[in-house]
């Protein structure tokens, strides 16, 4: 551990004493768990899709340090710069999202990826944190009452994003984006009658989605009907938790992971359950809960509305993704195709979450209000 004097006012010294170190450590631990679990899941998943044992793990290990750097780098930003990065990133993500519709290869029935110079990029991952920041700015602008129609612009941003996501189609991400936006508008002081109305609208939306989009209907059906055909993964997943027990079967001793097609991504939590047991899973769960709740806790003292809204949005995205992933792995809700933040395999997801959490750390740093951070 480096020693930094409290009187050190250099950039790093300043950062060290102002950043939320506990959350930083929790994020570090999550990434360490992710590294450990991808080692367990990579051979099982890789073998099935014809990749050598640790191919997936190697790729993840290349991205992990970059992600760590992004977390730290982003947390150095001032709120003003967070806003700028968010808005520019949001616009860039929209452009990339549009490009996927024209240039993206179709994988498993959806065009979500862009291949850029040897890297494949999933713009929908990056649109989530950047949209949250941009929307927070708009809501804050509305409150300042200087004539900017922030609410309307925020709504338009959401509409455009969701439209682009649904064209891929990517219902899971649309849901996350909408939910985060919903939490933000709720925090921003949405009238209660609207809250009730929106909740109703969401329910209607679910019903409509069930009726209009066949693969959504299929997932919901198979969740409700135990004998439906497509419950293979979920059943294997539950088996994994069962077989793991409290203490797990031991690293590398898992067998159910071999029959889980998405062991490295959507179902990595099941691999953790089988090999490291429920206690390790509870620790992971605790880390997620700690990061989200501690972030919220720090925001309770926040005096800047933009900071409050942006950080809430980012933390909500982070927490919601974790909850949805774990809950669907445990068959508490239909499978959604959601990565477990910082743990699942996936470069874009990891980098985007690193950016988002880096920005959260930046926003929750202790600051002297100087009046220019809006």
């Amino acid at each position, binding site marked *: 551990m480096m020693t930094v004097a409290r009187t050190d006012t250099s950039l790093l010294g300043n950062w060290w004493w102002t950043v939320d170190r506990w959350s930083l450590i929790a994020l570090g631990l999550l990434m360490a768990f992710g590294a450990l679990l991808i080692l367990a899941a990579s051979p099982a998943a890789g073998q099935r899709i014809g990749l050598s044992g640790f191919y997936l793990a190697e790729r993840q290990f290349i991205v992990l340090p970059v992600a760590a750097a992004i977390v730290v780098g982003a947390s150095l930003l001032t709120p003003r710069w967070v806003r700028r990065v968010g808005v520019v990133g949001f616009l860039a993500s929209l452009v990339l999202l549009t490009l996927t519709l024209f240039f993206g290869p179709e994988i498993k029935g959806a065009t979500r990826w862009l291949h850029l110079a040897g890297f494949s990029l999933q713009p929908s991952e990056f649109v989530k944190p950047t949209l949250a920041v941009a929307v927070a700015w708009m809501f804050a602008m509305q409150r300042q009452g200087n004539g900017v129609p922030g609410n309307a612009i925020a709504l338009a941003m959401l509409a455009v994003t969701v439209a682009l996501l649904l064209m891929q189609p990517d219902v899971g991400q649309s849901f996350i984006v909408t939910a985060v936006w919903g939490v933000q508008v709720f925090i921003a002081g949405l009238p209660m009658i609207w809250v009730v109305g929106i909740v109703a609208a969401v329910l209607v939306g679910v019903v409509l989605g069930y009726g209009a989009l066949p693969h959504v209907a299929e997932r919901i059906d198979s969740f409700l009907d135990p004998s439906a055909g497509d419950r293979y993964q979920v059943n294997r997943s539950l088996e994994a938790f069962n077989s793991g027990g409290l203490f797990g079967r031991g690293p590398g001793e898992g067998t159910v992971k071999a029959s889980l097609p998405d062991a490295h991504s959507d179902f990595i939590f099941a691999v953790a359950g089988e090999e490291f047991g429920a206690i390790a899973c509870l620790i992971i769960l605790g880390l997620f809960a700690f990061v989200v709740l501690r972030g919220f806790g*720090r925001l309770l003292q926040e005096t800047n509305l933009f900071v409050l809204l942006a950080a809430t949005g980012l933390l909500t995205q982070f927490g919601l993704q974790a909850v949805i992933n774990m809950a669907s792995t445990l068959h508490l809700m239909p499978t959604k195709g959601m990565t477990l933040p910082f743990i699942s395999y996936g470069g874009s997801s990891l980098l985007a979450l690193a950016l988002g959490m880096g920005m959260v750390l930046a926003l929750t740093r202790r600051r002297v209000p100087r009046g220019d951070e809006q």
Partner: protein
Amino acid sequence: MSERLSYDGPAFQRPRSSRVLPVGALLRWKATAFGGQSSDALETGRTRLLVASLVFVCAFAVIGVRLLDLALFTGAPQRIAPQAGFAHVEPQVRADIVDRNGVVLATTLPRASLHANPREIRNPKFVAAQLSAILPDLSEGEVSAKLAMDRSFIWIKRGLSPRQQYQINRLGVPGLSFREEERRTYPQGELTAHIVGFTDVDNQGLAGLEQGFDELLSGSKTPLRLSLDLRVQHILTDELSRSMEEFRAIGAAGVVMDAHTGEIVAMASLPSFDPNQPGSASSDSRFNRATLGTYEMGSVFKIFSTAAALDSGEVALYDNFDVSDPIRAARFTIRDYRPKEGKLSVPEIFMHSSNIGTVHLAMKTGTEIQRSALARLGLTTPMSLELPETGTPQLPTPWREISTMTVSYGHGLSVTPVQLTAGVAATINGGLMPKPTVLARDDDALVPNQRVFSERTSRDMRRLMRLVVEHGTGGNADAEGYLVGGKTGTANKQVGGTYQRNARISSFVGAFPMDEPRYVVFAMVDEPKGHSGTFGYATGGWVAAPVVHNVVSRMAPMLGIQPRPQTITPPMEEHPLLLHAVGEDFRIAAQ
């Protein structure tokens, strides 16, 4: 800066501006929201943030509880059938074959087979040397050449013993793998080899019932229950092989059949083979003499000629025929083995097995009646039996008058032992033709059998066959108390169109107990050689009749057939069948 330095409080601090949870702020709207005072908006935001936190706390708690529930209790659903490619495939199990008492005759056991991916084998010569040390029957050179091929799959050895598998596993050679297979195993070995048959390495039936019921066996798990009684099978095989040894015969066959249902209780063909290693068996030992071999049966056929004659009404039981002179027909001369003088009644002809007398009977009966009787007895067409190895009778073509004559004493027409046994069963069981089977037959599944002879004829035949054992050629078959009746047969074998003087088929077909027949027992010895104990004779009466005697006296107590306590064999002079006879000698002597 000062605030930054002084911050030392806990992470979860209550909002400074609302020490008491401000429900009002939560619900406050319009006044503050969307354009209201910034501080009011902040206060609302913080309050509502608490709501969001609460929701998250609940979600995390539910997940945690669910985790513990799954890990500690069996909350997982029933395991569904694994999909192909992810787990091992459910092995195909072939149904067992059992005898009528449930003793296993064929079953399926797991075994490991060794295969290799030669592309993964680094040093074929070294691996081949290691393998041939464990599997001595493998040629090291061949294995080495196989392992050097540019292929990704080769079999090395099917069916390893557990010890061999362990030793090979312990070598730790990459590229060698085991495949769990099913191996058909025959615990009774040679004893039931011809009936049960055998399969190839992929468990496909190649012979016997394994072939005849291949589809049924591979598609079911219910054991196939046979009519066979393993105990009787053992007795029959034992007695036949003793006889074979005693008379230095080249083969033997035997059948024990339920006289009413046609169920084959035992059926043997010697020499036999080990169905667990059918590849090393000679074709002679694999040949089923009882169902596939057809033989000229000789004098046992007189049962059918005599029954047909009596049944037709053309001949009465006490009619006399002159047997003094040999019969010359075409280029043949028909003689008796032991010539008699004068006239003999039907019982005497049968008892002494007179060829001349039987030919007279047959000529009086007529060709048509004889042929139709043989046809009804199933002796002119291939028998329908469950085994694929079923022989086709060889008939005289064209069927001339001379054929009628020779067929009457069992020459010129070849049938299988099982066919003969079934025919005899029909003759003595009251005249109904049973359908022979090797499968256990439920009592209520009995089909009404077709009538072949009248009950009266059948009764007469029982008496005549008993007479043969009492006073005729079959005396050696008389198992005490079991009222065995039967008929001997000795036929010279035909090789290349000429009958061999010293190569014969000696047989005896008997049934017991003759007052209420239960079983028909047939024994046949191929090319027996006489010895001093039999005064050089190797006829049916000397060779096959003792086999039937022993089989009956060993199997009858086992099957719960009570011996008749006082069987009085009337002496020849007082025998009711013979008293009616017109033959001078006996009656004069009797008086």
